[in-house]
């Protein structure tokens, strides 16, 4: 478990760690994941101004709490636990994030069945631009989006995602499965509308 007891005041670092050593360790181990933290922040917060603030706050909190990071564990998972904690407590508002897809409406079937005759390898996906993919991810309901982002953007294992989200591994599995199916369906519909692939009649 990634326990998180964030200090109210600035800690000077763990016993036996000089400020220079702390700086060096943080720079070497945590800073390389700044882009990952930012990408996840962007998908959680939904706008770039909030994502900037959330990323900055996460990295500053992580630095203050560096003595709590257990060496040898996944530093990405630890940073993202802080990010999620910060997002939920300080950033998440009941604001309108735009359209959210109703995930219960989606059939539990892979798009493969629709495209097997015309494009079984799913090459049409490659024609979809990055922004469209990110827009489709943003349409997923939060708990499904979080799972997908922690897996496919942050490359966390199911057990690590379960720890970050405080849910059982089985829940991670089913949410991730449904999130990917829904994303596939949204992007397939988009590709049909854009004329990248012809809709098949099943």
């Amino acid at each position, binding site marked *: 478990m990634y326990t998180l007891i964030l200090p109210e005041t600035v800690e000077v670092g763990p016993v036996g760690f000089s400020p220079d050593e702390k700086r060096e360790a943080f*720079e*070497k181990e945590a800073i390389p994941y700044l882009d990952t933290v930012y990408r996840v922040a962007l998908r959680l917060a939904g706008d770039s101004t909030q994502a900037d603030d959330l990323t900055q706050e996460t990295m500053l909190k992580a630095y203050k709490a560096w003595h709590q990071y257990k060496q040898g564990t996944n530093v990405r998972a630890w940073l993202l636990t802080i990010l999620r904690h910060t997002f939920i407590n300080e950033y998440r508002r009941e604001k309108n994030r735009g359209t959210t897809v109703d995930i219960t409406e989606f059939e539990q079937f892979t798009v493969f069945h629709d495209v097997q005759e015309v494009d079984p390898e799913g090459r049409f996906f490659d024609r979809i631009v990055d922004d469209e993919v990110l827009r489709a991810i943003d349409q997923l309901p939060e708990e499904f989006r979080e799972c*997908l*982002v922690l897996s496919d*953007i942050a490359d966390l294992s199911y057990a690590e995602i379960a720890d970050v989200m405080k849910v059982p591994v089985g829940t991670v599995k089913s949410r991730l499965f449904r999130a990917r199916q829904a994303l596939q369906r949204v992007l397939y519909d988009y590709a049909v509308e854009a004329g990248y692939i012809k809709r098949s009649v099943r």
Partner: protein
Amino acid sequence: MTSEPMQVDCKEAAKRLNELIDGELTPEVEETIEHHLKDCARCMAVFEFEEAFCRFVKIKAKRQTAPEGLKERILKELGLSGNSCNE
């Protein structure tokens, strides 16, 4: 000890494809599912489609980087040099 791998049907294999793609199966179950895929062209085609889709999402969703100004602000705030910003 050698033994025949456990058998699964298409329905069971389909349920496990995500876990296979994500490397989340135990070696025994992984072997069982891969054994099924080798014997079943249709399940193999679905697997390849799902795997390609996951790869596509990962690539597209990971292209953004934190703005330079933000990186500089964070490094400055922490008194760091910024020599290790790339993953």
